[in-house]
């Protein structure tokens, strides 16, 4: 029972990070129909920026906010300068552009920060934690959950309850109608990329603390969040969050219980599991768990 809870907590924390990444994909896709293959590189950029902010002596919380904002603004700039002019072009053009943007970012990060591993200092003790239901929960996991929770609730309120949220959803549903109602669709795009960048940086920073260190492979986490996006349904923020959390938990439980049973073959089974699930889902429910085929009655 203790092991289970321990795995569950760690899994929830990892899942919360997946949820942040997946939500970033969904927010951008919904507003501007761009599938952002550079999302992982945004995440990596934000994380490296954080290490630099800390290295120059900024207070941790300040560094965190700055790194998130800077990554968000980078997203805004990329959308405005490179992707906005692509509107109306075939989908594969924007896909190739985002892959290209990812490559450029990767090269920039390597040039600037090198390829070595870095640590991510934390304002709390990394070996410390609390006990919950008689099982240990690391501070890292606790804070990851707290931060992700705050961001997700904040996003929910913005998206569902604010005027800007109505504008974002209107734009996602019918761009021409949104324009026709006087909604500044360009600003909606910008806000979406800002939000996605902020979420990506936060996810990267927590990933840098655990279970990985800060390195240039962390952009592949975005790949790991992919299944969450597709299982949740490309258009559904709620789906992305639920699928992200579930995948994190499932992954760690698999690592704890199933991998050992598979012997040497199963060492990395937990890493392929999300993709296996994704393929299964795509076959059975191509529009994902929460994606809708189209609410319309004519």
């Amino acid at each position, binding site marked *: 029972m203790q092991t289970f809870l321990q795995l569950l907590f760690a899994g929830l924390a990892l899942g919360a990070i997946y949820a942040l990444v997946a939500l970033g994909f969904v927010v951008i896709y919904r507003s501007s129909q761009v599938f952002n293959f550079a999302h992982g590189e945004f995440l990596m950029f934000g994380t490296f920026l954080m290490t630099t902010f800390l290295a120059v002596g900024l207070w941790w919380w300040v560094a965190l906010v700055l790194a998130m904002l800077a990554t968000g603004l980078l997203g805004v700039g990329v959308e405005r300068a490179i992707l906005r002019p692509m509107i109306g072009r075939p989908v594969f053009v924007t896909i190739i552009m985002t892959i290209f943007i990812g490559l450029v970012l990767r090269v920039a990060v390597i040039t600037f920060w090198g390829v070595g591993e870095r640590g991510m200092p934390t304002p709390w003790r990394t070996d410390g934690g609390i006990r919950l239901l008689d099982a240990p929960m690391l501070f890292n996991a606790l804070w990851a959950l707290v931060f992700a929770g705050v961001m997700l609730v904040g996003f929910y309120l913005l998206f569902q309850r604010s005027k800007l949220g109505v504008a974002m959803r209107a734009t996602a549903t019918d761009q021409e109608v949104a324009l026709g109602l006087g*909604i500044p669709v360009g600003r909606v795009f910008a806000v979406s990329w800002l939000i996605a960048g902020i979420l990506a940086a936060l996810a990267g920073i927590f990933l840098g603390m655990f279970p990985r260190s800060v390195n240039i492979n962390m952009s592949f986490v975005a790949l790991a969040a992919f299944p969450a996006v597709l299982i949740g349904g490309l258009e559904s923020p709620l789906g992305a969050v639920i699928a992200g959390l579930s995948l994190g938990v499932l992954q760690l439980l698999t690592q704890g219980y199933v991998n050992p049973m598979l012997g040497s073959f199963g060492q990395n089974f937990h890493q392929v599991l999300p993709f296996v699930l994704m393929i299964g889902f795509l076959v059975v429910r191509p529009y994902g768990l929460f994606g809708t085929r189209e609410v319309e009655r004519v």
Partner: protein
Amino acid sequence: MPDRSAVGCPGDGSGKGGRPVLEINNLEVVYNRAVLVLRGVSLTVPDGEVIALLGANGAGKTTLLRALTGLLDIHDGEVTKGRATFEGEDLFGEEPDAIIRKGIAQVMERRRILADLTVEENLLAGAYTRRDPEVRDDLEAQYARFPVLGDRRRSVAGYLSGGEQQMLAVARALMSRPRLLLLDEPTLGLAPMLVDEVARVIQELNQQGISVLLVEQNAATALAISSYGYVMETGKIVHDGPSEKLMEDEDVREFYLGLGGEGRRNYREVKHYRRRKRWLS
């Protein structure tokens, strides 16, 4: 059609005959830098009147509305000639939100409600350009005008019936407090009873001082509630006149009301007629 266009100008009709709110002069629109779709259209909407714009599929009615509301851009269309003014201010070159703030709202063809937003969110989206605190009051006003919408304010708009969706589309447009309402085929696909309902709503709005440009293929309804009408064909105005005159006009009766003088339509004659008219115009 020289004598037919001479029957009068808008404002001579039964309406209050105020100064023009909307004036379009010699408008030309080109799509994809290649296709000339509007070929010199002029049209006037006098203050406080309902003006009908009739025309068959592809005549360019929707294109005209896009030009007025700043939505040609996203269709790769462009105004290449002409001028349009609303209460004396130029419209072309303005962004859609600026046009709404001037006081023009539009109900697009096929209703185009935001299917996965709630009824209330649709209305709020219609008030996006407004910053004043009276938006809430206006929501209630729309619910009072359209009780079905009030009853279903929290339901997802995509599940409303076709008629309810049309009412929602109108209510949404009204949320920006327009003085000129552009309606694109609001009776399309509605049962006869609902067509009458829409007509009644338009008349009511008009009585409250909103000027209306009503684009329709349902000529009988449109002419019944408008004071003046225009008939458009392949990008040109080919007829215009006070609505009751248009309703009596043999050609309009035959081609837009389906009430030919001899009762039955003869396709060969139709084609002959069209050819002749094109040559004349």
